[in-house]
């Protein structure tokens, strides 16, 4: 069916309002939202969870479910009104002219259908192609998304591919019918950073190749900067600022946008000179929005009597074409003023060694097939000879992608598993062979953990106070209930939660507040070592800064050793004293934060740094995209674990990388690196991220 020629914007969203209807009332999810996308343009939609950005995408697809309804406004796609289309017209539109890529690639592919059939379905439905033609198209598309061996891929089931490969298939499926508009809803959130970098480049290249317009939804400002031409910031169901990328990133004119940028770590952020500023307060629930400006109660520039009167319209920003902001005080605020200095004292020095890990190994036995048993037994080499020290009052970051063995190390340290070889010394006592249940109370309370997902770690049917009391009972702290109760209240003070929260249930708390409870529980027994496993990655940007700050504050006051597991190098750089980079069970680099973040790098660290999106236009980045996936720990490559993806390999003579695991070398300043590259070659390395010398 030929599409009538249309030379205006591909997509025009005009004052869209969407509500979800429950039995008792209507909850507005998106209000008065307007956005246009021109042909070939990529527009980023940014906001925290619950701000309505996914609802906008689903409204464009007209897939709002049983409860959602468009209650106002128009969505025009190439001049045709989507809101008035019937089912047949919608079916023709979906997958054909507008396609979508989702957050979880594994969940969005049918597990019981071969990849080939899932791809072929698109041209067979929309263009009445024969099976053979559809197959040829699918083959071509799989090659386009740069997957190796397309024929084999077409015959595979989704579970046989890695996460990155699956997402490439989802992208291929979306592009099968050359849609005019591609909607990407957090397409890389579930992926590792180096895989993410590959996907982002692929999306950019294919967008340019096919001239596809894109609506890129993300909470990651750095990604938006790398992929989009324009950006729209959403807050609580409304667009609060919209404009060209450079305008919004460098001359933002809405307090929320500014607060958002100040809450995320950029390369020149520093704990002491330019600390992160958390946004105070909480995101309003859709049915508890304030009068007037939605951001008002959290805004530093709020003027009572002005901002809390009526709805705030979008206003033009003078001087910047197409830049609008939903703020009444654009002209009054001094946007260049630096954030108020928090006046936090410098960190006290680092003390003696609390935790020493010596040649620690952890291998798992794996039956060839868990369900049906038998077969040869295979060994997962999860940790290979880890050796390092952690000191009192120090933050040691453990960095690496999924499968690098950081979680296994955490399990061994906590005593959930015992070590295969080597030693872990806590204050000089060996603990590597003692399971949690057999450890003494002192040891258990001395090593505590803060988990990634605060939503799952609290018992949903126990009050907050009860859960902290329980931890105190287990650690045998205090002699009476009264003593423990007062200690519990002090712990709530410590994590800056109101004492009244003791009687609340976890579901009455926000994500950030739950994580604070988890931190209180971890510090209940004055832990000497706290292992924080991605403690902020499940939280929204505005809350991340506050939780990070809390962790470091408590650490400073207690002299705790903080082991900070993360894949977010931005926060690692901001937070940690030393960094340990892991790859496939090995420590590949270990040094102070400055050493690890400046050349010479381990080739893996170099790629990892390049993969992390930076949300600041004043920095430029060398692009290094790693090919392929992380090898399996069951069948690691011979020699250096990183040799299969290393771009420096050819600089090592004699194919040494493929035959021998490099030894740990010590560079000047106790900077340790596991690489065969010789010093002069290491010296050639250029910094990955460079500041363009712009003053902020």
């Amino acid at each position, binding site marked *: 069916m030929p599409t009538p020629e249309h030379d205006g914007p591909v997509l025009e969203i005009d004052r869209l309002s969407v509500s979800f209807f429950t039995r008792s009332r209507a909850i507005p999810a998106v209000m008065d939202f307007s956005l246009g996308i021109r042909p070939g343009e990529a527009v980023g939609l940014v906001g925290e969870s619950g701000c309505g950005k996914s609802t906008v995408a689903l409204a464009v697809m007209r897939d709002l479910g049983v409860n959602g309804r468009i209650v106002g406004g128009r969505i025009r796609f190439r001049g045709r009104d989507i809101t008035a289309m019937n089912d047949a017209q919608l079916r023709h539109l979906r997958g054909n002219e507008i396609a979508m890529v989702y957050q979880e690639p594994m969940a969005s592919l049918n597990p019981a259908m071969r990849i080939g059939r899932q791809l072929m379905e698109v041209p067979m439905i929309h263009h009445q192609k024969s099976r053979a033609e559809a197959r040829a198209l699918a083959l071509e598309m799989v090659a386009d998304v740069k997957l190796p061996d397309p024929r084999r891929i077409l015959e595979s089931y989704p579970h046989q591919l890695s996460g990155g490969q699956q997402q490439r298939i989802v992208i291929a499926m979306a592009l099968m019918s050359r849609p005019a508009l591609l909607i990407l809803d957090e397409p890389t959130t579930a992926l590792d950073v180096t895989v993410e970098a590959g996907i982002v480049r692929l999306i950019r290249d294919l967008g340019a190749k096919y001239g596809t317009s894109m609506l890129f939804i993300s909470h990651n400002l750095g990604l938006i900067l790398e992929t989009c031409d324009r950006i729209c910031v959403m807050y609580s169901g409304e667009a609060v600022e919209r404009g060209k990328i450079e305008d919004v990133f460098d001359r933002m004119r809405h307090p929320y946008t500014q607060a958002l940028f100040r809450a995320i770590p950029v390369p020149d952020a520093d704990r002491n000179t330019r600390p992160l500023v958390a946004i105070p307060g909480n995101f309003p629930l859709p049915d508890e929005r304030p009068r007037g400006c939605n951001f008002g109660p959290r805004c530093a520039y709020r003027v009572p009597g002005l901002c809390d009167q009526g709805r705030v319209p979008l206003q033009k920003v003078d001087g910047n074409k197409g830049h609008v902001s939903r703020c009444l005080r654009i002209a009054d605020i001094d946007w260049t003023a630096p954030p108020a200095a928090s006046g936090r004292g410098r960190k006290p020095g680092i003390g003696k060694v609390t935790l020493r890990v010596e040649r620690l190994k952890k291998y798992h036995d794996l039956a060839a097939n868990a369900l049906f048993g*038998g077969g040869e037994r295979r060994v997962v080499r999860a940790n290979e000879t880890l050796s390092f020290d952690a000191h009192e009052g120090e933050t040691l970051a453990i960095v690496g992608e999924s499968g690098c063995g950081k979680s296994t190390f955490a399990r061994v340290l906590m005593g959930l598993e015992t070590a295969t070889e080597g030693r872990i010394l806590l204050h000089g006592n060996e603990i590597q062979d003692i399971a949690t249940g057999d450890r003494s109370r002192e040891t258990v309370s001395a090593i505590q953990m803060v988990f990634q997902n605060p939503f799952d770690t609290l018992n949903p049917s126990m009050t907050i106070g009860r859960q902290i009391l329980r931890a105190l009972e287990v650690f045998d702290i205090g002699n009476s209930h009264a003593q423990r109760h007062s200690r519990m209240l002090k712990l709530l003070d410590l994590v800056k939660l109101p004492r009244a929260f003791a009687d609340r249930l976890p579901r009455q708390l926000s994500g950030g507040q739950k994580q604070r409870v988890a931190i209180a529980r971890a510090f209940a027994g004055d832990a000497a070592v706290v292992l924080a496993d991605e403690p902020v990655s499940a939280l929204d940007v505005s809350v991340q800064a506050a939780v990070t700050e809390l962790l470091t504050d408590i650490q400073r006051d207690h002299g705790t050793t903080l082991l900070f597991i993360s894949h977010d190098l931005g926060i690692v750089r901001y937070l940690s004293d030393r960094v340990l980079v892991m790859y496939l069970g090995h420590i590949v680099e270990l040094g102070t934060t400055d050493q690890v973040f400046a050349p010479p790098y381990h080739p893996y660290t170099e790629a990892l740094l390049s993969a992390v999106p930076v949300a600041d236009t004043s920095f430029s980045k060398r692009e290094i995209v790693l090919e392929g996936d992380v090898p399996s720990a069951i069948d690691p490559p011979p020699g250096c674990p990183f040799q299969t993806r290393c771009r420096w390999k050819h600089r090592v003579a004699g194919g040494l990388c493929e035959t021998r695991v490099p030894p740990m070398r010590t560079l000047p300043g106790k900077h340790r690196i596991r690489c065969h590259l010789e010093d002069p070659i290491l010296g050639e390395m250029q910094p990955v991220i460079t500041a363009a010398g712009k003053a902020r």
Partner: protein
Amino acid sequence: MATFILRRTGTMILTALCLTFIVFFLTNLYPNLEKLAKTQGNFRMSDEEVASWLGNRGFLQPMPVKYGQWLGILPGYVIRGTDGVLRGKCFGRHMAREDAPRFCGVLQGDWGYSLRFKDEVRAIVGVRLGLTGWLMLMVMAVMVPGALVMGVLAGMREGSRLDRTLSTVSIVTTATPEYVSGVIFIAVFASSAVGLKWFKGTATAAMNDMTFQNFALPVLTISLYGMGYIARMTRASMAEVMTAQYIRTARLKGVGFAGIVMKHALRNALIAPFTVIMLQFPWLLNGVVITETLFNYKGFGWALVEAAGNNDIELLLGISVVSVIVVLSTQLISDIGYVLLNPRIRVS
């Protein structure tokens, strides 16, 4: 796949041995034997007489030996009794003693003699299994497609009027036991109480000549009872699949509703109910007793009740062997089918 089936068969044989030994042990407990002696010999036998009666017939040998003989891996006993008569396990009733084989157990095809029916156990089990087999087949043919259609229709639009109607029907049928629904059916469709008289109220004639008229009611009674259960399982599974993200992917790819249900949802939705369906076979084999009695259809369940009621040890053992084999082999089929339906599971 071949090694998997081989390995599973090995496990099955082991399980079968254990299970039959347990049944053998329980049926050969002394009070049972005493009762046997008294019913076969004389009700006024003294304890000593019972012991010598049993001893002469090999019942007092150690349990593992007796089990080995019954199985046919040990030679059958040959005992010169206290009364001077030479008895052997393998001495046939119409066979010269010299010709008697040394081994005569289940493995040799000698399943023993039923005291209740005065016939070879093998013959009885064969006939009854055949009769119940037909019943099972018909029930499966009605129940499974019916339940799957009901479940899929109900689950594809969760909460719709169709879903609520079908769910009510399936709950009602599952909540009505066979002895209630069977009686109602007979009253409505076969008696003069209502006067419809479409079907026969008894299935006795169906043992020789199966017709729609005489076989419909027992089949319907059992099917309806099982159908609701499978339909509920299928509905839950289907409803869950329909909310999965890949269904949204398919919808936003432009696949029509029929295509979504048939191509994308169905295979995934059938994985869970398949196991439940295979579990219906063992249940049907022995669970049809009530229906068989109600409609006077002398099948496997009926034979089991007769054997248990009459202390017919050898028949009981024979029936348990068949049951064990049926249970284990349907579970093997269930596992293989599961692997075929679910590509995420691969056998090595």
